[in-house]
């Protein structure tokens, strides 16, 4: 089973996609299996974070921004410096994860959530791909 979640994003903001993914799992009727989540973008990231405190997401986005400053002398030619830095950030945090479905639910710690990290944007054509087997 394969589904696509569509997202509208803001620059350098993370979006919690956990509720939508849990909905897809509930609809799939799979009791025990593997959930693969991926994004088809090279300037955004997919991560697992503690969802309790959105300020913690800001910390992560800020730290990643500090580690990869948007600079104008990247070798690659892009529309703006944010996009060039976004490619490095995306490569660093990753874009695919395989998770465990147990007893019909996502096996997660009690504070874990899945975040889409927008490193470029704002964009209105972002996608999260969800596969269940």
């Amino acid at each position, binding site marked *: 089973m394969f589904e696509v979640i569509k997202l509208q994003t803001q620059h350098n903001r993370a979006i919690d996609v956990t509720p939508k993914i849990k909905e897809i799992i509930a609809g799939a009727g799979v009791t025990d299996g593997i959930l693969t989540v991926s994004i088809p973008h090279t300037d955004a990231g997919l991560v697992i974070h503690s969802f309790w405190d959105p300020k913690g997401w800001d910390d992560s986005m800020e730290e990643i921004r500090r580690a990869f400053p948007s600079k104008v002398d990247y070798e690659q030619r892009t529309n703006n410096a944010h996009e060039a830095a976004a490619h490095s950030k995306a490569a660093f945090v990753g874009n695919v994860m395989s998770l*465990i479905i147990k007893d019909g639910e996502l096996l997660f710690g009690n504070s874990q959530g899945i975040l889409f990290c927008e490193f470029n944007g704002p964009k209105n054509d972002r996608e999260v791909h969800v596969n269940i087997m």
Partner: protein
Amino acid sequence: MYEVIKLKTDYMTVTDVTDKVKAIVKKSGVKDGICVIFNAHTTAAVGIATKEEAAQRDFQADLDRIFPLRANYNHVETPFDAAGHVKCVVVGVDVTPIIKDGELDLGDDQAILFYEFDGPRPRELHVKCYGK
């Protein structure tokens, strides 16, 4: 087949869990498939990297350099916890190596590692083998 590995960690340590995962793969009887190793904590991570312990300590030191402990994080808890969340995000909490001929398909120098960014704490690592 699904099992839990229980760990007891110290602050900023790296635990090699390769042998424990290999034992679960063997027990599962899966000959060809995948093995999902998942960490359900948000101040710890899991990865596949070199089994050399000095290099594992170097990696933790590099992470500390890139994401140093700060008192002024937006997330107000201990600096260890706040920085741990960031490290967890960038290192990741899941790996899915291949099971081939009943064995984990890893390189000779590769190990499955549990990274502790807070601690000391009791930790759990979830392992699911999937395939035929």
